[in-house]
């Protein structure tokens, strides 16, 4: 799998700490929803740093992919991608990678995300909507507050629900708080493969709730996000 040069064609902020990069690859992206690319940066002295980022855009046969990057204060790569990169710059990428946490748009799927864990699940949701198979997916996303919601304009819908853990928006009927069995009870009736994505504590908590609600462990796929360091 070769390293290729990807050109940054657009950038925009999702939240104060998360930015989406739109990258043009040399050829069509063959990624499946849920997969990731590795981004590699090289300093003039030859020093290299690489990190994996999930693709937020659905497969569409085109050359462009979107990666949503959370800026971590101690992050060597994320701080550069946020602060040092401009439209028109090129970065090296390799991929797509990952055959486990993928959804090909053809089976029922329950998506359970926490915070930045929404990224690969968004590719799945976008694929469902683009192929008019929204009835196949249900998404439950937990975020701290409305300002932390990625894809805020696009995400909410009949099949996608956001719950807030610290600050709920005005008029919200559900008071802010972490995910509870009640939040997931209705969703688990939507039979299918479950994709859990978020920080390790979120992934553990959400998996625990799902197992407690009777979801067999072999139907749960987990992707844990967070600093590779």
């Amino acid at each position: 799998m070769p390293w290729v040069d990807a050109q940054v064609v657009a950038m925009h902020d999702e939240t104060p700490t998360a930015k989406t990069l739109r990258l043009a690859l040399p050829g069509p992206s063959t990624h499946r929803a849920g997969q990731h690319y590795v981004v590699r940066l090289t300093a003039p002295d030859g020093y290299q740093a690489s990190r994996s980022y999930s693709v937020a855009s659905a497969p569409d046969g085109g050359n462009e992919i979107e990666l949503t990057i959370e800026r971590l204060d101690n992050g060597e790569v994320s701080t550069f991608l946020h602060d040092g990169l401009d439209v028109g710059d090129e970065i090296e990428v390799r991929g797509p990678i990952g055959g486990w946490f993928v959804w090909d748009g053809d089976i029922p799927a329950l998506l359970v995300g926490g915070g930045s864990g929404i990224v690969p699940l968004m590719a799945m949701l976008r694929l469902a909507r683009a192929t008019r198979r929204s009835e196949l997916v249900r998404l439950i996303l937990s975020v701290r507050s409305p300002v932390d919601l990625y894809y805020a304009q696009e995400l909410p819908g009949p099949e996608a629900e956001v719950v807030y853990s610290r600050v709920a928006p005005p008029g919200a009927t559900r008071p802010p708080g972490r995910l509870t069995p009640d939040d997931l009870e209705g969703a688990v009736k939507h039979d299918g493969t479950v994709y859990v994505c978020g920080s390790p504590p979120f992934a553990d908590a959400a998996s625990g709730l799902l197992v407690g609600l009777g979801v067999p462990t072999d139907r749960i796929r987990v992707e844990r996000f967070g600093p590779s360091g």
Partner: protein
Amino acid sequence: MAKFTRGFAGRGKAARDARLPPGQYDIGRGWPVLTAEVTPNLDTSTWTFTVDGLVQRETTWTWDEMHGLPPSTFSGDIHCVTTWSKLGVKFAGVAVDTLLNAAELLPAATHVMARSHTGYTTNLPLADVTDGKAWVVWEYEGAPLAVQHGGPARLLVPHLYFWKSAKWVSGLRVMDHDEPGFWERNGYHDRGDPWLEQRYQGD
């Protein structure tokens, strides 16, 4: 060499510890948890470990029996394919050599498939788990191995990328051929040598 990325200085080459394989960095005190499946809750009173396949005798140990075997420790470095490395860590358990010798390998043996209580699998050449290169460990830095890191016991093959060190290990099947395990079927390299940067299939 890759051309450089405009504006990126990074942490610098001079700062790199020589113990780091290419493309890796020292994560210091952290130890990220990366797992594809739900963390299991395993009871040592019913825990077993089995060596089977191309051996003279299929052998199973209980937790207590495993602890009765001659102990062995590893002190050194571990490397994750996601690019973090932990330098100077210490694990304790039993050498895989001890387990394979008890079961007695048949001459045709060339590979093993490690399996976990969760259904996870990973394949390894026999040469990478013998001659003091691999362990089944249950202690990390003198304390019981935490469940999210593979406790009560995991496989440890520190000279290969850490996905080969199967968490919640339940056995080794000895084989006369190679076969891809879980991550190997999902895009990762069959062998996984960090010094050759064998991260993905085709590397």
